[in-house]
């Protein structure tokens, strides 16, 4: 086993060790659990950085497999087994750093934020198990192991959302998160089953090899053609991502998940767990057919629009960020769908940094508000409502400025990492929209529209919280900056949101080392008939231009002979991917200008409405009341689900209850009644027939008795008569018997 693989397994095990140490010593660690968890995570981070440093220097993929569940010889198939193992490619290496870094910073932040909490130790234990599960997702080399850790991550999310489980809202939110997630997992499992039933393997490398060798005619779901089945498999596995990454229609759990502690929201529901869906989509990217890609892109695009439109009117500081997360995840998914793999993953990384910064920053603000309200003995005002904030920058400078840097990143202002990644996505969407045509033409329009809305609602938040006059002077008086354990992560994440980590040129990300060298777009291996049909002329034009590039690519991917590593073959990009890449380069310049323009428009609008003319917002809300309510009430989707889905199940449950009470119990009661009726009949029989017979015999006896008794009159004369009669009879008998003889 390669040294790096072993290290990655150690990194996997460290948070698990943290979990085990803390969960069995909760009473002892009720105030000091961080002393165990934080150093362990720091060590894991150092190892992850080392792995990334080593891996990003070398090409190819490190792989280690072993047979996990052996089925022996199965009739009709031969020797069958589920293999499992670890794979480290650049994607994994970067994800390892992202996960351990954010997890470590959250651990550090929580030591101050959760100080004095009623369940401090349990909190750190479950943070550990979450980190363990997330790391398991990113280092697995097969879909099955990924699925296992997928579910574990869902459980960790459930446990952490319901941290304050004495309140009803977190309980419901945790249940909602887990159940909605499971709905997506049904699709994912079905997709996995299609793969297993046809290829008898879950291993990524093996699946890609089998598919690129050509789809067998037997690869069919319910009689669909092999190509359609491949599309179906891709979409179904993507369903898992819809659930985990909170895409429409399974986005409803993420805003409710804000009931959990804010550092949890930062770790799980902004940076890592929700990114797992994007990671999964990235992993199955090579087998997404053209139709599947369109579905993925449209889901992502619509989600980003839906969430951004809701974020415009939210007043809770965390809800704005939650919907922002859903919207940005929509961007990432859309990127994967339009074929901008590199841009999508780039955005995942940058988003993890600046979103975690935003969430932890909001946590810092909420912490300060809590303290202030506690000081004022006010237990009714909502510390998370932005309408109680204002002018915080002067009192909380570090929080404020790091928040502003992160907001610049999410809005897509040049010199930030967010600008680079978002811009690439928008260029990719524009290229795809132009080439694909049809419904896809809406995607870049949605993309730029959402960019405008994002800039607007994020700066609305910044202006409402950190600028202007404080809306509540009493609270403002007691607000103060947070301790170093909370501000240090903020500073670090803000610095990570700047451009220079990902490329030298802040306005040319495509040639930066992140997108070009570390995580270039991977080649798809779908059958040519299922590839997106971009203009044939463009394809043939670019196939000619592609040939020298193929040679260049192959020259760069010569791999060292190392029997310990199983290398993934370096495929060259498919024709449609080449076309996309070229088109993206063509539109990049224009795209950049439009996105900067759109971002500045959004910021200006927010400044105007929330700093300059503060009554305008309320006036607009009043004028467009129906639209305002539609946005504020999350498009009434939750209410619809309550009515349609929950209502349906309640109806089924009530029907079953009715059935049980009336039919089943009725049958039981009926049997009872029949038995009683039967017993009446038997009783009647017993009383009249059986007893009758007995009485009859007694009566007969009595009758004969009476009859014979009448002979005994006691009168002598009667006896004499009888005697005479018998003599006569005797005489007659004897006379005629003797006469006969």
């Amino acid at each position: 086993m390669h040294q790096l693989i072993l290290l990655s397994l150690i990194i996997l095990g460290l948070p698990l060790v943290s979990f085990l140490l803390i969960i069995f010593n909760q009473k002892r660690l009720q105030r000091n659990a961080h002393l165990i968890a934080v150093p362990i995570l720091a060590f894991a981070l150092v190892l992850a950085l080392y792995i990334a440093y080593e891996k990003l220097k070398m090409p190819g993929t490190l792989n280690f497999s072993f047979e996990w569940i052996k089925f022996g010889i199965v009739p009709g198939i031969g020797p069958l087994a589920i293999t499992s193992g670890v794979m480290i490619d650049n994607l994994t290496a970067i994800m390892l750093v992202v996960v351990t870094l954010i997890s470590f910073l959250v651990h550090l932040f929580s030591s101050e934020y959760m100080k004095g909490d009623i369940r401090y130790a349990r909190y750190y234990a479950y943070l550990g198990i979450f980190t363990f599960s997330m790391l398991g997702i990113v280092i697995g080399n097969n879909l099955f192991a990924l699925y296992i850790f997928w579910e574990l991550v869902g459980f960790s999310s459930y446990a952490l959302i319901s941290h304050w489980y004495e309140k009803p809202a977190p309980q419901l939110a945790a249940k909602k998160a887990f159940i909605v997630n499971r709905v997506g997992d049904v699709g994912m499992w079905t997709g996995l089953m299609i793969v297993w039933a046809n290829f008898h393997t879950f291993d990524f490398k093996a699946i890609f090899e089998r598919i690129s060798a050509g789809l067998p005619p037997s690869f069919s779901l319910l009689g669909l053609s092999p190509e359609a089945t491949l599309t179906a498999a891709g979409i179904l596995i993507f369903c898992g991502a819809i659930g985990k990454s909170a895409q429409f229609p399974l986005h409803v759990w993420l805003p409710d998940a804000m009931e959990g502690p804010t550092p949890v929201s930062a770790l799980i529901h902004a940076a890592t767990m929700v990114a797992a869906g994007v990671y999964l989509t990235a992993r199955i990217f090579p087998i997404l057919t053209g139709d599947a890609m369109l579905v993925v892109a449209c889901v992502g695009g619509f989600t980003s629009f839906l969430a951004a439109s809701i974020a415009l009117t939210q007043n809770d500081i965390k809800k704005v960020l939650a919907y922002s997360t859903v919207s940005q995840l929509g961007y990432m998914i859309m990127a994967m769908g339009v074929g901008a793999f590199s841009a999508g993953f780039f955005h995942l990384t940058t988003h993890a940094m600046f979103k975690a910064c935003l969430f932890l920053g909001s946590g810092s603000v909420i912490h300060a508000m809590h303290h202030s309200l506690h000081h004022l003995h006010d237990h009714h005002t909502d510390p998370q409502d932005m309408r109680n904030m204002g002018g915080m920058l002067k009192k909380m400078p570090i929080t404020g400025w790091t928040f502003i840097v992160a907001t610049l990143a999410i809005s897509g202002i040049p010199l930030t990492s967010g600008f680079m990644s978002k811009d690439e996505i928008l260029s990719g969407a524009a290229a795809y929209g132009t080439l694909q045509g049809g419904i896809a033409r809406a995607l870049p329009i949605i993309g730029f529209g959402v960019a405008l809305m994002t800039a607007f609602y994020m700066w609305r938040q910044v202006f409402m919280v950190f600028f202007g006059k404080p809306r509540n002077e009493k609270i403002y008086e007691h607000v103060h900056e947070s301790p170093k354990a909370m501000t240090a992560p903020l500073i670090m994440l803000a610095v990570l949101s700047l451009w220079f980590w990902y490329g030298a040129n802040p306005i040319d990300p495509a040639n930066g080392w992140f997108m070009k060298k570390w995580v270039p777009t991977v080649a798809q291996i779908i059958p040519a008939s299922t590839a997106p049909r971009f203009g044939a002329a463009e394809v043939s034009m670019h196939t000619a231009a592609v040939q020298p590039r193929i040679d260049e690519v192959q020259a760069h991917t010569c791999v060292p002979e190392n029997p310990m590593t199983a290398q993934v073959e370096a495929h060259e990009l498919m024709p449609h991917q080449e076309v996309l890449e070229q088109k993206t380069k063509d539109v990049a310049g224009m795209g950049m200008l439009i996105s900067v323009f759109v971002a500045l428009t959004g910021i200006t609008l927010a400044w105007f409405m929330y700093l300059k003319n503060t009554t305008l917002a309320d006036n607009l809300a009043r004028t467009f009341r129906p639209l305002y309510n539609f946005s504020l009430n999350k498009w009434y989707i939750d209410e619809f689900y309550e009515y349609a889905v929950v209502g349906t199940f309640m109806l089924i449950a009530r029907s079953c209850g009715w059935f049980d009470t009336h039919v089943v119990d009725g049958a039981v009661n009926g049997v009872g009644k029949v038995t009683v009726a039967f017993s009446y009949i038997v009783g009647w029989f017993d009383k009249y027939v059986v007893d009758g017979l007995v009485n009859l015999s007694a009566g007969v006896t009595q009758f004969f008795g009476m009859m014979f008794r009448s002979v005994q009159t006691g009168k002598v004369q009667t006896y004499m008569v009888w005697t005479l009669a018998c003599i006569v009879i005797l005489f007659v008998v004897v006379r005629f018997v003797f006469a006969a003889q």
Partner: protein
Amino acid sequence: MTVGLEHFLIVSAVLFVLGLYAMLSRRNAIAVLMGIELILNAANINFIAFTRYGAVNMNGQMSAVFVIVIAAAEAAVALAIVLNIYKNFHSVSVPDVDKLRD
């Protein structure tokens, strides 16, 4: 018309039946005894008839004498019984003496 044996026998039979009837159907105990006497006398007539028309010997007449004596003795005893019955039951009505019925 010449009186033959059969006429005596018919008379004795008639007497017998009448005595039997008296014996069986009369309520008074004395009447029952009278019936018994009639039966005995009917038997006597039978004996005498056979002496006159039957074998040449004295058997019939001898038997008749015995019957008369026994009849007298029996009548005495029977009357004694009736007297005792009267003492106990205060009635000489035969149907009233039915203490042996259950």
